[in-house]
């Protein structure tokens, strides 16, 4: 078993052999991966040492103190958070060796081809078709809300391989080469004026069968690994009082006494209290996880977060009065990183509208809380035993 002392020793060895000050960034990241210090809980040879996940912090702290470059995890979040755990669990040895190293170093960016115009909340109804042709699959369809598609080398893709089975059963999971000539990426401009996301059109895209993850028809189960890891990734870290959206409006309130009215004051205080309670709920949830008693509160955290972001940023626009009539910039842009609390109040107001849609709509999350936490009856399922091709659409 690799312990903290051993990890410290290995980290010092890495730093001695590749001094960050004089080593190329990418060379350093590759060397770190090969030393098993990329993600220590991964297996040996795949960037890890089979060590407990909690010990990663030991390595990160040492490297951080030495001024070593990191792999810019926010830029490659989909690869790290969603693709990697899925490749690790379902990939062949060959797939793991080929894909994980450049994924981790950031040399190859990943995106996720899941949602479709006709399959949002009901993702399992997806209609992108993959048809077997010898040792290849031929894929046709359209995906949407794909972040990083315009930067990505690879995509994780779910497609329908058997329309005669009920919807959950005829899906297969692939790794798609985004440089295939049949892949067309178009920016999807959103209400903020910018385009964080893309539409991806797939026309006769050819995927070798060797790039399938998991068994044919088992794609829905494989996708659960991806989506469960998404929820873990969203779990987040402890925020201080007035962290996030409420801090922005509180600062404006303090700095701009001329904007204050009694009505705005009451509403601000009400939202401040709610934001503080939501923060405490998150603190409590994290303490439960640490104590090994995960609570169901996690299911509700995103509901709080979405509603409060929307209400607080909406109040902020109103507070600004005449300035609230303005917007910083409608120019179509392609931001690489998204900061919900970034830019001005108008942007925050518009961007936060997506918070109750992306990553599970609030309506679906309320169903999940009602059914899984409170044990109330599930929604009637008229599609369960019907062949996908016979579903209403």
């Amino acid at each position, binding site marked *: 078993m690799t312990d903290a002392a051993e990890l410290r020793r290995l980290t010092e060895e890495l730093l001695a052999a590749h001094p960050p000050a004089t080593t190329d960034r990418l060379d350093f990241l590759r060397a770190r991966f090969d030393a098993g210090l990329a993600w220590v809980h991964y297996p040996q040879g795949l960037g890890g040492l089979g060590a407990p996940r909690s010990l990663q912090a030991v390595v990160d702290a040492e490297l951080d103190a030495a001024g070593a470059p990191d792999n810019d995890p926010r830029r490659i979040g989909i690869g790290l958070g969603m693709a990697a755990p899925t490749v690790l669990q379902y990939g062949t040895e060959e797939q793991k060796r080929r894909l994980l190293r450049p994924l981790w170093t950031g040399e190859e960016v990943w995106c996720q081809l899941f949602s479709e115009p006709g399959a949002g909340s009901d993702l399992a109804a997806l209609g992108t078709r993959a048809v077997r042709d010898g040792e290849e699959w031929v894929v046709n369809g359209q995906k949407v809300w794909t972040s990083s598609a315009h930067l990505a080398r690879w995509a994780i893709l779910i497609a329908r391989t058997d329309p005669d089975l009920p919807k959950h059963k005829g899906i297969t999971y692939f790794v798609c080469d985004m440089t295939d000539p049949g892949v067309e990426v178009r920016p999807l401009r959103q209400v903020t004026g910018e385009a964080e996301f893309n539409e991806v059109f797939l026309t006769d895209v050819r995927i070798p069968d060797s790039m399938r993850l998991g068994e044919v028809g088992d794609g829905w189960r494989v996708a659960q690994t991806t989506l469960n890891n998404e929820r873990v990734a969203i779990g987040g870290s*402890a925020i201080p009082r007035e962290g996030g959206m409420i801090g922005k409006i509180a600062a404006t309130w303090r700095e701009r006494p001329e904007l204050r009215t009694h009505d705005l004051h009451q509403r601000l205080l009400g939202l401040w209290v709610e934001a503080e309670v939501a923060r405490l709920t998150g603190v409590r949830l994290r303490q439960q996880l640490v104590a090994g008693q995960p609570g169901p509160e996690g299911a509700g955290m995103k509901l709080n977060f979405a509603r409060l972001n929307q209400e607080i940023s909406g109040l902020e626009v109103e507070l600004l009065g005449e300035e609230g009539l303005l917007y910083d910039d409608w120019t179509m842009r392609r931001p690489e990183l998204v900061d919900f609390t970034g830019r001005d109040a108008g942007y925050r107001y518009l961007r936060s509208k997506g918070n109750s849609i992306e990553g599970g709509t609030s309506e679906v999350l309320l169903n999940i809380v009602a059914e899984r936490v409170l044990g109330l009856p599930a929604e009637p399922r008229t599609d369960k035993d019907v062949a996908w091709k016979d579903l209403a659409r």
Partner: protein
Amino acid sequence: MSAQPDLLYSEEEEALRAAVRDLLTDHCDPAGVIARTESETPHDVPLWKTLAGSMGLAGLLIPESLGGQGATHREAAVVLEELGRSVAPVPYLTSAVVATEALLACGADDLLTESASATTVAALAVGLHVAPGATVPHVRLEDGALHGELTGIADAAVADVLLVPADDGGLYAVRAVDATVTPQVSLDLTRPVARVSLDGATGHRLGESGPAVRRALRAGAGLLASEQLGLADWLLTETVRYLKERKQFNRQVGGFQALKHRFARLWLEVAGLRAAARNAADALATGRDTDVAVAVAQAYAARVAVHAAEEALQLHGGIGMTWEHPVHLYLKRAKADSIAYGTPGTHQEALAESVDLRAP
């Protein structure tokens, strides 16, 4: 990480909860509580004797040297959660928390010893609606005797000793037998208020009224949130249970999505209240960030408890409107609690100062 409050329940706290719940399950059933409300003794004195005396809970906040348990507000909060779940008609919050805090502030060791042994029930003679820091009504001190009338005094009917603020700035202990206590017809049937009249009563001066009352009301406000959590938790759980059973239109009523979403939102509010109430109890115990923690909990708790009660009544349908069903006891308690120790708005106003979000 010393600044991080502990928002969980310890094993000891869970054991305490289980003991209190067992007792209440056996001795505080809803039908019994309803029947008692219209009897000569709306308070359940035998239950109080068991809780306070046999289980020693009256002395949780009192040091061991005075015969108490030397525990903290965290444990008292757990007791209040359970008492809230049962809308138990016992003077725990008013006596074992609020009056006890006033006695602790005054160093009134004799009365604390009596309280700890449950031989004496004390009540702070300040209207239940008064918020920490607000102006406190008082009686007149003339020639060493107390004169005047105080109203809205919760649980005064079962108090042996009243802690009375007087116009000389002192807090006086007055034996209930030396005062006239007249029950007022109260919205909350399980925590009735009364009028206290003093006509030349003698009192024993315990100390300065101002700081003692402020400390008592702040602890009361902070721990009231745990009682409100108990109310809301029971209301949600019971209503979910009922709507899984209840069938209309040939299906479980709890399966209608319009109702599922209302339940899910309520659950989320209760989860928030649990965090806020634990935070207030922990802050009272540690003395860290106490004013803000109490004000946040009280600005939030009333809305959740009242919402839970109003949803419970509505979602029970006709049966929820009957005297026979206990939901009205919870509604009345929740609504009265929204006034007790200051309304949510009062606590929100206090936050405006303490977190520097000033009024125009």
